[in-house]
């Protein structure tokens, strides 16, 4: 299904996706971008400005780890503040989708 969605909305969703993925395990940038773009259509280049911003805001820390195939990769790790921020965002997201789902259901029933 193709949806036209406000860019800002997508940015918020992208932020949430990144946080959720890092909650499970530390990832490098390429990995994050791939995992997200497999499920939703994003402009991949905008993930890096987002990662930089969230790192500067103290939600992530970064470290380099050697890889078997080539030069070391930059990994992102969720901080305690990052986890708190994720919880707040998730809460907001759940309330938001619950509300929208209800409205959709009511709308469909009325037809």
């Amino acid at each position, binding site marked *: *299904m*193709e*949806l*036209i*969605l*406000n*860019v*800002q909305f*997508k*940015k918020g*969703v992208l932020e*949430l*996706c990144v946080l*959720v993925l890092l909650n499970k395990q530390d990832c*490098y*940038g*390429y990995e994050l*971008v791939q995992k997200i*773009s497999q*499920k*939703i*259509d994003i*402009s*991949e*280049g*905008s993930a*890096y*400005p987002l*990662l*930089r*911003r969230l790192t*500067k805001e103290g939600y992530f820390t970064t470290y380099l780890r050697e890889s078997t*195939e*080539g*030069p070391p*990769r*930059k990994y992102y790790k969720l901080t305690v503040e990052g986890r708190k921020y994720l919880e707040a965002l*998730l809460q907001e*997201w759940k309330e938001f989708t619950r509300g929208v789902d209800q409205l959709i259901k009511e709308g469909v029933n009325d037809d």
Partner: protein
Amino acid sequence: MMTKEQFLKQLAKGLKRLPAEERQDILRDYQEHFMIGIEEGETEEGISASLGSPRQIAKELLATYHLEQVETTTTTGNILRAMYAVLGLGFLNLVFVLGPFIALIGVLVAGWVAGTAFIISPLLVITDAVVHPGTFQAFFLFFSIMLCGLGFFINIGMFFATKAAADGFIRYLKFNMKIVKGGHKNDDQYISCGFNDKGIST
């Protein structure tokens, strides 16, 4: 279709105004992205196509950087640089950023000029009395001294108003940037978004 070289070159060009260290750091992230992509068997052109326009990415990074600078130290130069960077994000901003900015500056300048004119009004009365000794009236002097006091209050008020206006304007810039930025793929305000049937798995 852009090669890795072309993409990084354009991005570097767009980030020229950033400090070298910051720029290198950003370029390294995209270099890494290309390198891993190639290891995974993608082509340089394919990777740069899915990354989106390097010019737009640079604009977004610049705007974010300048807004950060404004937050750490609020100087006129910083505000102007941030405004310029946000303006770069799109034509619409010319109206929504420059318009309010000019109006705001107009009001502030008017306030400062009025306050300052009131403060120096006794000087004008004294100068007038010296130049035309015959026309001096004590009432003018008292009135101008009153205006002078009023002028001080106006300027103190203007000081806080200017500070508040600067803060408010920075917030407005950020809000504006949030609305305009993004949409690298088509450089549009809105882009289509396809959710698959799984939606967003959390």
